[in-house]
Every structure is written in structure tokens, then in C-alpha cells.
């Protein structure tokens, strides 16, 4: 997720335009080459487009009808992947869409990773919206190129274009049996005018070769042979290595330091200061001292020998245990109303049965397997960066601001990411490399250790949720109040921000899809003392934990089966009416992506059926739990099976996840994302907890911030997709939110122990 101010205009605003007639491209491309630009953003500037075309082989190929595809005369098709690959498969999925509409032979396709450039549209690969936003753009790119090749062939044969068609990397004239390969046609096609959008003929679903079918990753072989290049693997001529000592407390400053011992370490060259940031922190470097050395090890060793006195500043008052109690108090007091229907207080006052509960989810760290790392080279007012980033455009503007140079003077090459989960959409570490390169005059590789990663993150926020329901005689809620408090992500962009904005609250909170006449959704204030940032699924993690655990609690309180009870809460099939509520709907139109309870009910039904819910005899110490949640426009129901022994040892033999994500472009990757979400959710639930003492983070590495290993992870996760023609929705994130409460509800079923505060390790369940 991203705040609106950082989100580029929607890709729907795109228009294909013939740029070959513009003077500024002259001299850059081979004679007669056709250049079309898919203009995705209004503020596109000529210089940046020129640069992008030059830097991309797709852009410099003989035929390149837009910025996403280029065809060489040898038939090689270059397709640009403009979104970051962190394991979702997007670098394969979107190019496959282009290749399909182009009717290209995938074995002759080369995928090129885009540099940061606004002409590609938003590149911040977060919020599970890559396919949603770019599926149609990619189809147009492929269909445009295909039609131009057909027209070139038709002209060559002197037959009507209508008589010709594409056939796997060739154009064929059926009547005469003549064929020409794409490579043979590229030069001629480059001279043709761009067909208007109305002239494009898209393939039918039946004609798709790749879309909607399982397909392996473009990078698979490289990943299995150690050849894939991640940010950690970038090497540049003359490069030096840096390890940064960051202020232990956010906003802290170096008071004094002694680098005598550090400089004695073999391979250490010098110690360089990075200035403290001026709040708000945003994506700026944290400040501190960098040890510059000949290799990573020397930099790490030198850093250990550096003696630093810190001025910790105002955030040193932060103690997370005490803060937890503050959140518990705040969440009991009235907050700002974010959604209201009926008269909740009036219903509560009637004196019927009420149930209430408070839930708590601590800070979490992303802990991608590849810690933050970046190489940057400053030269003559220009910076070139090579890094694992989810957001190369943020790399551009963050470095530009740090060095006071124009955005377009920053070139950001994007490597593969060794995990992202939201951490790598914040390029503070890349800015560190740029600042240090300018100061040292050398290409600098900044390597964060695992300790840096855990201690200096952008933490998933800490939260408390208060829920209260009034129940009628049948046990169904007549009134429902839910209030959350959490230091908001907005605090990194605006000093002192204490309330969640409409985006934060839309994540599983204002969109509660329950059929309850009196309903109020609130948010209370909470101050941030550490950097808060998006983490896979974001606010849905804690909001779904609260609503789905509370739902289970109510079911048990009134003696109902949890699945049946969820059906009652959801109510009849309908579009949830959110009039009067500021509900951003993940940036999508509510008309195209409404909250449709029929779809929510369907996944719940599917998960219940597939898991054998209610039909299986569970033995002592075993149990099943359920949760259902819509996030990132995708509907997910999850049933988790657990075994808990007398010592609190938890085993998760089976997970059943039913998913309605609309049309699914690549089922292979989608399945993997939901399998992975169950493991990610296991880590959150079992042991996920970041705490702070006197402003400094207590955890440091995988021994004190454990994540799920093979024996602790679900043994088997089965994923069931609803076959759907609905517009594509999110895949990477929506599996996480329902998993955590489903797991905790299963633990209740197995043990009678109700978990209202995460993680489970605090309840002697591991």
C-alpha cells in the first residue's frame, strides 16, 4: 500500500502516441525505426522518454511500438518488465501478457528489467495491483505490435490485412500459404503508422497461449544455479564497501566518536559521516557513520570497533511494553468515527446481552532474506544506482533530494529482490550509498547486516482493537462497534501524525462487510516513536485478526458453529453500501470492484466444503479454525487445522484457502503466493514481535526475531481458486490476513485458549 500522495496517476490514463515524428528522437535510433510511446503519466517529460528509449533494448530494437516491446530483425522479442520481481512472478506474468497478444514464441522472448522512469507508469511494486493496473496496458502493447506486423506482411504480399493473421512468431496468409517471421517484418513494420486503439483486435480467451495458464518463472534456471543477480550481487569497477552505524534511536545524532581502532582493521579505508535527517523521516537515510572498506567483512569488522557517543533525542522515551498499556487505554476511549450506520450507542443502552474484547498485534519487521543493499555511483552531478528496490522512482526522488540534483539525474537499475514485503519500497539504504559515493568519489556498496535490517526497519505498526457487540435473542449482533488505534504510516511523512487516514482504515476496517443495522467504525490516536511502514497486507493483518477472532468468539459465546455464524454476519448476497464513508477501495473504482458478499460467501462455502468443516471428528488437542476476509479486492476464506500438545507445541498439518481474485493471469504464481502467505502468517502469529526499550529495538537477528522454518510451517496448504471472469484483483497480500485469525481460532478449538494478543509465543504456544 502507498499513500495517495506517492501513488502515480492511474495507468488507465494511458494513450499510445506516435513519437517517431518528434524531432527529439532523431539520431537515437536506427533509420526508419518506429517509436511509439505508451504515455502512462501526464507529467511525462521528453528527456526522460528519450533516455528510457535509449537505455532499453526494447526501445532501441528495429521495431518498438511502445516502451514495453521491441522486435529485432533476428526475431528476438524484448519485453520490458517495469515492476519489481520479489518473488510474486510479476516479471514473468506481465511480459507473458504482452507475448500472448503479440503471439510471440516465449522461447524467443528476452525480458528486460526497466530502470526507474515515470513513462512506465507507477513502478512501486506494492499493494498487489500490478496485474490489475497493467493487464490491459500489456495486452494493448502486444496487440499493437501484432497488428503492425500483420500490416507489414499484408503490404509485402499486396493482400488485404484482414486476410492475414499472426501464428506464433510469424504472420501467415492462409489463402496462399505464405509466411513471414516477425524478425523479417520488423523493419517494414517500423515504417507504418500506429494503428488506432479501435483497430486493435484482441485475442479471445480461447486463443490465449499463456494468459491464464500455469507458467514457470523466466528466472527459474538462474535462481536454481546461483546465477540470478540480486542487489547483494552487484559489483562495479572500483567499488568500495560500506557498513553504516545507525543511531540506535530514531532521530538520534552522533555526539562524538573515535575511529582509531576501526581504522586499524585490515581493509578499512576511512570513516564517513552521514548527516542526520530533518523530520519527517520519509525515505531519508537515518544518519550515522559509515565505515568504508575493501570488502564487506572489513566494513563490518571496522564498524564493531567504532566507538560512538549518541545523542538519542526525544524518541528515547519509547518503551513498547508501556506503550501497549497506553494503547489499551486509548482504544477504550471514543475515537474519530470513520463509518457509521444506525444508532450503536442506543442499541447498547437497551440493556441486552453485549460482548466485548480487546486485541493487540505488536510491531513486526519485514526481514526479507536479502537485507537492504545498494550500489551507487556519483559522477558529475549524476547518480547511477543498482539495487533491489520495489520502487525505483522513489530511489530517484529520494536520492535527488538528498544530493540536491534533479530527479532525472538519477538512474536506478533494478535487480532481482531477495524478498521485499514492503521494506524495499523505502529506499533509505539506496540514498545512503549515493551520499557515500558523492563523499568518497567511488562507487559504494552499502550492505545492511541482518542486525541493521531488524533494528532499523520501517516497522509494521503496533495496534490495539476494541470490539463490542450487542446480541439479539438468536445471538446475532444488533449493534457493532469496532475501534482501532495504531501509530499511522502517515507519521513518516508528516511529523506528529497520530490518526490513520482513509487508506489505513480501509484495510479491513471501514469495509467490514457484515449485515448489522447499527454499526460504527472508529480510529483513535497513537504517536509513532519508530519509523512505521507498509508490510505485506498492512493494516489488514491486525484488523482481520480483530474482526475474525471476535466473530469466532461471538459464535462460541452463543453456541453457534463458526462457519454458520459467519454466514449470518455476512448476511445475504448484496453489494455493501459504503455511501457516506470515505473508502478508497485500494485505488479501484467501487463500481468495478464493489464489496460483493456473494463472492465472500462463496469462498467461505468453498473453504468449509474442501476442509470437511463440521464433518470431521477432531481428536484431543486438535482443532480447526476459520476466517474470511476481503483485501486488495480479493476474497479469501481460510481454514487452518492445528495440533497442540500438552507442552504448547504447535503443529499445522493442513491449511485450506479458497480464493476469489477475479481472473487469474498466472495460476502457478498465484498458488505459490497463497502457499507462502500461510507461512508468512505463521511467522506473524507464532513469534512475530518487535519491541523497544528506551527507543532502541530489542531484537537483532533470527534468534530473537524467529520466522517460521520448515518444521513449524504448515505442512500442506491447499489453494482453491474460484474460476472467474471478474476483473483481476490482488494476489501477493490477501492470503495473509485471514490466516492469522484462522490459526488462532483453531488453537481455541484445540485447547480452549483464546488468543487476543499476538504473538503466540507470549502464550507459551510455539
Amino acid at each position: 500500500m502507498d499513500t495517495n500522495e506517492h501513488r502515480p496517476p492511474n495507468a488507465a490514463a494511458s494513450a499510445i502516441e506516435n513519437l517517431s515524428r518528434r524531432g527529439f528522437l532523431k539520431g537515437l535510433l536506427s533509420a526508419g525505426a518506429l517509436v511509439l510511446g505508451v504515455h502512462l503519466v501526464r507529467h511525462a517529460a521528453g528527456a526522460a522518454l528519450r533516455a528510457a528509449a535509449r537505455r532499453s533494448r526494447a526501445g532501441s530494437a528495429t521495431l518498438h511500438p511502445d516502451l514495453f516491446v521491441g522486435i529485432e530483425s533476428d526475431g528476438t522479442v524484448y519485453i520490458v518488465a517495469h515492476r519489481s520481481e520479489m518473488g510474486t512472478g510479476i516479471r514473468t506474468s506481465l511480459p507473458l501478457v504482452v507475448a500472448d497478444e503479440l503471439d510471440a514464441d516465449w522461447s524467443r522472448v528476452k525480458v528486460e528489467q526497466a530502470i526507474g522512469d515515470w513513462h512506465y507508469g507507477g513502478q512501486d511494486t506494492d499493494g498487489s495491483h500490478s496485474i490489475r493496473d497493467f493487464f490491459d496496458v500489456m495486452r494493448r502493447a502486444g496487440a499493437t505490435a501484432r497488428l503492425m506486423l500483420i500490416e507489414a506482411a499484408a503490404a509485402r504480399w499486396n493482400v488485404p490485412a484482414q486476410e492475414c493473421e499472426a501464428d506464433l512468431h510469424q504472420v501467415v496468409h492462409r489463402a496462399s500459404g505464405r509466411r513471414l517471421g516477425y524478425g523479417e517484418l520488423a523493419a517494414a513494420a517500423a515504417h507504418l503508422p500506429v494503428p488506432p486503439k479501435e483497430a486493435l483486435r484482441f485475442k479471445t480467451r480461447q486463443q490465449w497461449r499463456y494468459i491464464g495458464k500455469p507458467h514457470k518463472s523466466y528466472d527459474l534456471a538462474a535462481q536454481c544455479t546461483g546465477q540470478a543477480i540480486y542487489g547483494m550481487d552487484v559489483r562495479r569497477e572500483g567499488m568500495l564497501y560500506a557498513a553504516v552505524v545507525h543511531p540506535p534511536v530514531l532521530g538520534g545524532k552522533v555526539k562524538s566518536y573515535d575511529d582509531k581502532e576501526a581504522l586499524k582493521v585490515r581493509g578499512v579505508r576511512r570513516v564517513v559521516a552521514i548527516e542526520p535527517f530533518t523530520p519527517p523521516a520519509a525515505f531519508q537515510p537515518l544518519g550515522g557513520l559509515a565505515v568504508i572498506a575493501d570488502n564487506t567483512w572489513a566494513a563490518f569488522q571496522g564498524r564493531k570497533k567504532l566507538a560512538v557517543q549518541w545523542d538519542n533525542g526525544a524518541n528515547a522515551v519509547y518503551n513498547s511494553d508501556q506503550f501497549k498499556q497506553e494503547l489499551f487505554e486509548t482504544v477504550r476511549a471514543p475515537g474519530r468515527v470513520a463509518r457509521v450506520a444506525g444508532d450503536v450507542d442506543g442499541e447498547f443502552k437497551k440493556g441486552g446481552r453485549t460482548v466485548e474484547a480487546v486485541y493487540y498485534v505488536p510491531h513486526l519487521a519485514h526481514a526479507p532474506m536479502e537485507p537492504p543493499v545498494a550500489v551507487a555511483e556519483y559522477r558529475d552531478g549524476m547518480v547511477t544506482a543498482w539495487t533491489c528496490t520495489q520502487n525505483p522512482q522513489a530511489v530517484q526522488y529520494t536520492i535527488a533530494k538528498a544530493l540536491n540534483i534533479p530527479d532525472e539525474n538519477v538512474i536506478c537499475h533494478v535487480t532481482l529482490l531477495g524478498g521485499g514485503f514492503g521494506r524495499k519500497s523505502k529506499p533509505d539504504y539506496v540514498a545512503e550509498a549515493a551520499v557515500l559515493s558523492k563523499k568518497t568519489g567511488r562507487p559504494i556498496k552499502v550492505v545492511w547486516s541482518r542486525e541493521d535490517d531488524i533494528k532499523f526497519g520501517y516497522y509494521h505498526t503496533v495496534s490495539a482493537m476494541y470490539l463490542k457487540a450487542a446480541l439479539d435473542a438468536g445471538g446475532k449482533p444488533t449493534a457493532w462497534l469496532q475501534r482501532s488505534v495504531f501509530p499511522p504510516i502517515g507519521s513518516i511523512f508528516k511529523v506528529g501524525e497520530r490518526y490513520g487516514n482513509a487508506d489505513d482504515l480501509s484495510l479491513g476496517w471501514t469495509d467490514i462487510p457484515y449485515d448489522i443495522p447499527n454499526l460504527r467504525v472508529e480510529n483513535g490516536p497513537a504517536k509513532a516513536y519508530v519509523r512505521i511502514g507498509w508490510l505485506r497486507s498492512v493494516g489488514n493483518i491486525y484488523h482481520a485478526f480483530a474482526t475474525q477472532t471476535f466473530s469466532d468468539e461471538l459464535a462460541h459465546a452463543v453456541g453457534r458453529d463458526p462457519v454458520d455464524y459467519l454466514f449470518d454476519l455476512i448476511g445475504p448476497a448484496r453489494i455493501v453500501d459504503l455511501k457516506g464513508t470515505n473508502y478508497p477501495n485500494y485505488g479501484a473504482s467501487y463500481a468495478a470492484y464493489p464489496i460483493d458478499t456473494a463472492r465472500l460467501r462463496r469462498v467461505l462455502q468453498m473453504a468449509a466444503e474442501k476442509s470437511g468443516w463440521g464433518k470431521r471428528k477432531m481428536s484431543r488437542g486438535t482443532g480447526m479454525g476459520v476466517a474470511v476476509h476481503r483485501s486488495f479486492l480479493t476474497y479469501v476464506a481460510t481454514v487452518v487445522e492445528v495440533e497442540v500438545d500438552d507442552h504448547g507445541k504447535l503443529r499445522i498439518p493442513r491449511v485450506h484457502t479458497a480464493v476469489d481474485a477475479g481472473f487469474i493471469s498466472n495460476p502457478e504464481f498465484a498458488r505459490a503466493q497463497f502457499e507462502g502467505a500461510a507461512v508468512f502468517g505463521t511467522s506473524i502469529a507464532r513469534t512475530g514481535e518487535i519491541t523497544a526499550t528506551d527507543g532502541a529495538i530489542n531484537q537483532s537477528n533470527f534468534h530473537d526475531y524467529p520466522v517460521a522454518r520448515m518444521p513449524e510451517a504448515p505442512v500442506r496448504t491447499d489453494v482453491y481458486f474460484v474460476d472467474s471472469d471478474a476483473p483481476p484483483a490482488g494476489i501477493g497480500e490477501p492470503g495473509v490476513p485471514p490466516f492469522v485469525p484462522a490459526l488462532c481460532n483453531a488453537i481455541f478449538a484445540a485447547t480452549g485458549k483464546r488468543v487476543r494478543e499476538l504473538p503466540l509465543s507470549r502464550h507459551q504456544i510455539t
Partner: protein
Amino acid sequence: MIHLRVNGVERSFDGDPTMPLLWYLRDELGLTGTKFGCGMSLCGACTVHLDGKPVRACVTPMRQLANAQVVTIEGISADGSHPVQRAWMQAGVPQCGYCQSGQIMSAVALLRGNPHPGDREIDDAMAGNICRCGTYQRIRAAIKAAAEAMRGHE
């Protein structure tokens, strides 16, 4: 001067003897298939074979490596044709892929000593390798498939 063989190639090292093998492989030899994940032998991303046994390169100092035989992910096959690598590709194991060099090296070592591993033995052998994307289910399947393929070979 420390002499060793890395993927069958003679090497000599005269740098800081406390430097872990990981950084020698990555920063000096440019063998970047072996990954840095924790630096404390907690995550397994840096798993290599030392005289045939799996070790964590991030805590194996160069001074211990005189006359050692080191094999990295780049050394188990020239072209990704090792049965474990083939099984990994067939099962579509990797998501981000960063940990997979280490996972593959642990799996190769497991299968070398145990051609018929059960679930429990796979868990034990692989528990030291973290995958944050959560590919464990496919890793387990790939190990079983590789075991079968390797037995078929014999």
C-alpha cells in the same frame, strides 16, 4: 597463505584469516550464488559444502580452510542439471529465490547421505534453512522427487 580448492579450482588466500568463507567467495572470487542472510549461522542462505559436508560459509573462517575442498552452488553442476536442481525447477520452488542456493546445497547434502528421506528427516535436514517467501511445501516435494530421480539413476 592458505591454499584451497573452490569448485575444483586451486585458490590461495593471504587476507584476514578471520574473514568468513562467505565474503571470500562473494567479494573476492565473485561467486555470488552463495548468499548472505544473517551472518550468524541462523538462516542457511550461505550453505556450501566443505569436504562434502554442508557448512554455513558465514561462520567458517578462512583460517580453517587450508587444503579444504569447497563446493558452492556454482559447482554442483555446470548447467543446472543436478537432479536436485532439476527437481527444484520442475516443482517451481523459488519465489524470490534468494535462499534457494542454500536450500539446494542442504538438500544435495541430505540426499548424498540418505537416498530415502522421510518427512521427519527432511524437516531435520532443512530446518536450518529459512525461506521467508514460504516455499517449504515445494522444497519438500522437490527433495522427494529428486530422491526418486537419483535412485532411478543408480
